[in-house]
């Protein structure tokens, strides 16, 4: 395989984070190598594929090709254990359920068109350190092994984060701070244009979801807290069995995975190194969504990398601008979401039913926007016994 001996940046992982970074860096004139160990970028999928409209328009203001979109979504419906539900619906598109096999490939193609070198079926196996500095990486492409030199190593490895951890980043996921998930893509399952979320003991510390993908397809999954010991496959099978509407639905694909719902990795840069996307645990802790955050971190880190390239300074001190810009932009929001997750995980079935029975769609929107106080006050008025659990949000 034709590879150069050195690159300005080597990006490990061609998911939403890595491909977005590679595009920005290549546009900035950098010689970039984007590699992924998968033989086909985008496949297999380990994702519910849902993303808010705001992310897509922020990162791709010109829009994304319709082939990347399974379905357009106009809201969400949340189910309590007692069957009560709460629906927020808009008259416009509020989100998408993507077709990530196509979307991820599209992002890699965009990176290639911007001038990045892309190579699938190529695994980064270890780092090269010289005189105390990371200067390159060992790669394996099929039966061939290579060494490449680079000024900048970018870990966009997703949850596995082996290279990031080898470099000393705190990207190890602990059981308490992950959800473990199983998901079926199901056909012949009519749905509205809403994402559905089911809370309570059907999914300990997590939730069950139905994300419609259009053409009567949907991702139907369950995630549970990593420490709960719950078996997501068994729970998913029983969720499907107990619900009449899945009677005719067929399983087209079995997916699964583990996702961080904890705190972002604090240190995201070192000399000649950056860690972006889910490898840095940049995931929303309340629902495990990380596609948008991955792309955003790719953009922010990419811009900083281009500046570093122009100044020929890939020191931690300079790359630090990525970490600072990230923290300023998303740090607070993610902290608030983590707080919410830690409250939600204490609720039992009755609590969920009481809360969902009490609040309105507007209240739910407030909670999603991070304005907890007035909603908590309203719930406490009717259910004062929840004070102990909910007080953290006041």
């Amino acid at each position, binding site marked *: 395989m034709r590879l150069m001996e050195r690159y300005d940046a080597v990006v490990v992982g061609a998911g939403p984070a890595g491909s977005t970074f590679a595009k920005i860096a290549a546009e900035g004139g950098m010689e970039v190598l984007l590699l992924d160990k*998968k033989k086909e970028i985008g496949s*297999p999928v*380990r994702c519910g594929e849902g993303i808010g409209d705001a992310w897509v328009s922020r990162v791709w203001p010109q829009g994304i090709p319709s082939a990347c979109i399974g379905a357009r979504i106009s809201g969400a419906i949340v189910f309590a254990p007692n069957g009560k539900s709460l629906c927020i619906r808009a008259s416009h598109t509020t989100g998408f359920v993507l077709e990530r096999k196509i979307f991820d490939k599209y992002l890699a193609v965009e990176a290639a068109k911007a001038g990045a070198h892309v190579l699938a079926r190529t695994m980064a196996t270890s780092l090269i350190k010289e005189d105390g500095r990371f200067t390159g990486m060992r790669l394996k492409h099929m039966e061939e092994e290579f060494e490449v030199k680079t000024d900048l190593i970018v870990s966009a490895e*997703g949850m*596995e*984060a*082996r290279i990031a951890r080898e470099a000393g980043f705190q990207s190890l996921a602990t*059981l308490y701070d992950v959800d*473990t998930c199983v998901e079926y893509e199901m056909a012949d399952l009519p749905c509205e244009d809403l994402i559905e979320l089911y809370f309570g003991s059907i999914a300990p510390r997590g939730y069950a979801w139905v994300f419609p993908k259009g053409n009567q397809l949907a991702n139907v999954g369950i995630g549970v807290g990593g420490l709960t010991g719950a078996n997501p496959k068994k729970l998913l099978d029983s969720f499907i069995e107990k619900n009449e509407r899945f009677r005719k639905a067929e399983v087209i694909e079995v997916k*699964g995975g583990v996702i961080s719902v904890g705190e972002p990795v604090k240190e995201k840069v070192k000399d000649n190194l950056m860690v972006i996307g889910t490898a840095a645990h940049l995931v929303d802790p309340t629902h495990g969504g990380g596609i948008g955050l991955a792309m955003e971190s790719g953009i922010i880190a990419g811009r900083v990398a281009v500046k570093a390239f122009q100044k020929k300074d890939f020191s931690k001190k300079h790359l630090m601008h990525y970490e600072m810009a990230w923290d300023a932009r998303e740090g607070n929001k993610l902290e608030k979401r983590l707080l919410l997750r830690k409250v939600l995980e204490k609720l039992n079935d009755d609590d969920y039913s009481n809360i969902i029975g009490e609040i309105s769609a507007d209240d739910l929107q407030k909670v999603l926007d991070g304005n907890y106080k007035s909603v908590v006050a309203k719930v406490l008025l009717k259910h004062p016994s929840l004070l102990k659990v909910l007080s953290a949000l006041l």
Partner: protein
Amino acid sequence: MSEIEKFRLDERKCIYCGGCVSVCPVLAITLEETRIICDQKKCTRCRACEKVCPLKAITII
């Protein structure tokens, strides 16, 4: 000397999601496409992978 088997994978259940890789504190596990490979020598039997595996395909012995 033959290696002691600590990490056992039921390949009938594994969907190679790599979840086990992400929680292994000693980087003993790698995912290569559809193969999960465990360096038995590195494994400390902490059982994080066994717990987190969504398909319950792993047994630590």
